[in-house]
């Protein structure tokens, strides 16, 4: 118990800033419990790539990814229990987010709701759903909206999504790449982004002249967290790893999440900065991530159909 323990959190791109602060907080908390100060490290990248790294042997103690599907894939290889999502409260998602619009100041194209995005001449920036978890949320948000419209069917939803992607000039591989393309390279009229990413962009690029637009309806993004059983067993870090995830639900951590523009599960921590909009969930609309992924994003799925010659 005397040697400082190491813990590796394999996460996805937009959580960098949040986990950097969380590590300071958790280290203090853990030391205060009488443990030696742990050495916490993090790895960030596209959510899918990170999941694959864990599958290929990256020794993650915990994974904190963009989608339940990515963790499901890890569980599929037996690295953790398939029941992982029940082990922590709130679907193992200590914070949530949603998809919003980031537009140029003054919102020159008057983009307020999803149908505005589908108008002629509107150029939309989003990453590639095949490589980016964030992009999948974007895609599903639009799909869910289209289904809710009067007369909305799978077919009209597919049409809407196809129309949107026809208006995308650049498909970056990750959420951060898209933000750079939108902000730095000046491409597109609107960026579909995580709420937290949009706020971060406002903060990081105060000169860029950006505004956030909340559509009346969006999707509830639940980035999940889990302990990788096989790895913590091997490394003897289960206690630390479980505490690390548990503590994400603490007041302190919830406030930190809110500070980094994640919607905390504890409403008290939110501080009223998150406008209330109507949010659909993957489980209710799509029957869970496994089905969503298989129907829409796997090879031969709906997304591929959009780009097939004649499939548009």
């Amino acid at each position, binding site marked *: 118990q005397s040697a400082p323990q190491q813990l590796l959190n394999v996460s996805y791109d937009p959580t960098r800033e949040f986990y950097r602060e969380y590590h300071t907080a958790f280290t203090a908390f853990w030391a205060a419990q009488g443990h030696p100060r742990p050495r916490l490290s993090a790895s960030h990248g596209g959510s899918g790539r990170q999941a694959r790294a864990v599958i*290929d042997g*990256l020794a993650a103690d915990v994974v904190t990814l963009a989608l339940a599907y990515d963790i499901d894939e890890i569980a599929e290889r037996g690295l953790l229990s398939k029941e992982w999502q029940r082990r922590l409260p709130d679907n193992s998602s200590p914070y949530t987010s949603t998809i919003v619009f980031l537009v140029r100041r003054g919102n020159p194209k008057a983009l307020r709701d999803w149908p505005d995005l589908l108008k002629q001449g509107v150029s939309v920036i989003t990453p590639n759903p095949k490589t980016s978890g964030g992009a999948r949320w974007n895609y599903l948000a639009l799909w869910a909206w289209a289904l809710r419209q009067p007369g909305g069917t799978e077919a009209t939803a597919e049409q809407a999504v196809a129309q949107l992607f026809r208006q995308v000039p650049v498909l970056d591989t990750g959420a951060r790449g898209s933000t750079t393309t939108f902000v730095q390279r000046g491409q597109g009229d609107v960026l579909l982004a995580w709420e937290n990413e949009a706020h971060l962009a406002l903060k990081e690029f105060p000169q860029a002249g950006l505004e956030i637009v909340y559509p009346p309806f969006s999707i509830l993004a639940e980035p999940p967290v889990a302990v990788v059983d096989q790895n913590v067993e091997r490394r003897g870090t289960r206690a630390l790893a479980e505490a690390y995830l548990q503590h994400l639900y603490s007041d302190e951590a919830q406030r930190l999440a809110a500070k980094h523009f994640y919607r905390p599960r504890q409403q008290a921590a939110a501080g009223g900065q998150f406008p209330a909009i109507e949010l659909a969930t993957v489980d209710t609309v799509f029957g869970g991530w496994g089905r969503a992924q298989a129907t829409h994003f796997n090879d031969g799925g709906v997304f591929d159909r959009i780009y097939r010659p004649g499939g548009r």
Partner: protein
Amino acid sequence: MREATRDPTWLSAGLIGLAVLIALVVLVLPLAAVFTEALRRGWEPAWEAITDPDAISAMYLTLLVAAIAVPVNTIGGIAGAWAVARCDFPGRRLLVTLIELPFSVSPVISGLVYVLLFGAQGYFGPWLQAHDIQILFALPGLVLATIFVTFPFVARTLIPLMQEQGQAEEEAALTLGANTAQILWHVTLPKIRWALLAGILLCNARAMGEFGAVAVVSGHIRGETNTMPLHVEILYNEYQFVGAFAVAALLALLGLVTLGAKTALELLSRQRMGGHA
């Protein structure tokens, strides 16, 4: 008017101008962009980015990877060049082709092949895991991917030179009673030393700058398995553009110093050998 084959001044001046223009647009401009971005807010933020602990650990890792990969390819490259240029065996042409093969392999594939071999789902993955040997997402993986990508540089510089030089001097040494090690050390290495150094420097430059292959096998653990090019990407993704380009500029600077050293060596060798080297 001096030599008959000298091009007219307008032509040579025009061609030189054109070449310089091309070099400026295609080669210098990206470099200039890197430095401009790095120094956009002056020296201080750039300096801070470079001296950040994570940057320093990335630098250390990059140098360490190069320090392992380059000697491996140097020794292998010398052996390969010797085998091709000094030995008689069937399949020499095939050997040259195989040595050059990694040039035409995508860096992504160079990383992928090691994932296929050593990944937990790969051929040797289960065995490695059973024996608690970490290759991927650790130093060995980075080194392997770097070796793959920089594999042909030394051999490719040496082979044409050694073929052209012929082996008369080695044979002379042999008749004078020298053994293998003595021939290698006293005759062959001095004969090829400048080309060898040039090859090593190119290999080193590429080893330090490799991104695609390393990205696949790194694991991207801050301060642990990030090399400089990966650290650049991370900083960039954190919207720390100045920091990203500062580290990139440092990396480019290392490359430039390497290339400068190579040019100086070539100059030196031409002087030493009276234009024959």
